[in-house]
């Protein structure tokens, strides 16, 4: 058995099955009208995609870690984050409980 990698969720078959509805909703955000529809009525939009209670609560909380826990894949979740004007550095900071400034500083330090 392979050791888990700390802080890392492998997006494997179990996660893919668990997250299907959530990821399918995020896939729909490739379309600007769908993004607007989500912003207009988030509850109805999530209902249409059949999110589980766990997924609905995770989306409501805006917590990326909770969305991953609920089966979300980061490339799809990034499309949802984009609706709120958040980029991968913002969500990186959120997941590591850092300020965006400190998260960016950590990345810059990795290059020195």
């Amino acid at each position: 058995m392979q050791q888990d990698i700390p802080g890392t969720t492998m997006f494997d078959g179990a996660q893919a099955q668990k997250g299907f509805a959530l990821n399918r909703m995020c896939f729909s955000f490739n379309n600007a009208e769908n993004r607007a529809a989500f912003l207009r009525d988030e509850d109805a939009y999530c209902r249409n995609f059949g999110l589980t209670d766990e997924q609905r609560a995770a989306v409501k909380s805006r917590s990326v870690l909770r969305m991953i826990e609920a089966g979300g894949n980061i490339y799809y979740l990034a499309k949802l984050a984009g609706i709120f004007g958040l980029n991968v550095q913002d969500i990186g900071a959120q997941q590591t409980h850092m300020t965006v400034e400190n998260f960016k500083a950590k990345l810059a330090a990795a290059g020195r």
Partner: protein
Amino acid sequence: MAAIIGGIATTHVPSIGKAIAERKYQNPYWSPFFKGFDYVHDWLAREKPDVAVIFYNDHGLNFFLDKLPTFAVGAAKLYRNEDEGWGIPVASSIAGDPDLSWHLINALVADEFDITICQEMLVDHAVTIPMALMWPGEKWPIRIVPVSINTVQHPLPSLKRCLNLGRAVGRAIDAYTGNLRVMIVGTGGLSHQLDGTRAGFINTKFDQFCMDKIVNEPDVLSRFSIHDLVEEAGAQGVEFLNWMAMRGALTGRVTEVHRNYHVPISNTAAATMVLENRALAQREAA
């Protein structure tokens, strides 16, 4: 006869698309990365490729998790980009080369690579950003054959498998009777992780090792499992699979002629390499 002139590997971080749109070439954050393309532009102007075979990974534009091929080869006359949902400008369409596509498809299946054939295929930022980096502000003077590798949904193909896929592509191009100058592109990487409490992970030592080995000892890298690669390069650093396929397609004598490595661009260790390929027969004749 078709000639494989070389390979280019580059990072494809989406925010590069925004930086290009905002012309941030001289911006202190961006210039160490963009400057790495000065050499690439000279090389392309000198080498004048006709076609680029581009190994990349789709991030949920053409493919969703409902049907996700491990390897997919484009066979379209034209490849369109569309809204990807994260605010980068939609890029111009890119011309295809259906004759070369079908030649590769036939050769790959004959070679026991059970690829998916795509007569329609949207290409995402993993194709369009490298194009914009290689030919900035130009009408793209090249046709492409995109080859998509699954780096999203585990199980992923191994490093060895991707190297061998590239080798099969290289053999097929070598056998192509069209008089073409073909370049190979591998996009994505190097080390980065976007998800989880390990987000922001970068491994410069492993990146340097990969760039050193890929030139003339790519088989050394095949000993890493996908699990190893996630551990060493980060969850999205697995895009290095595209680099391995690119390297595999360089069938001749390979020389590194350019390398640029800069940390960070967004959450990613950004890297650009140019590898020249000289056909063995041509070298003997020279």
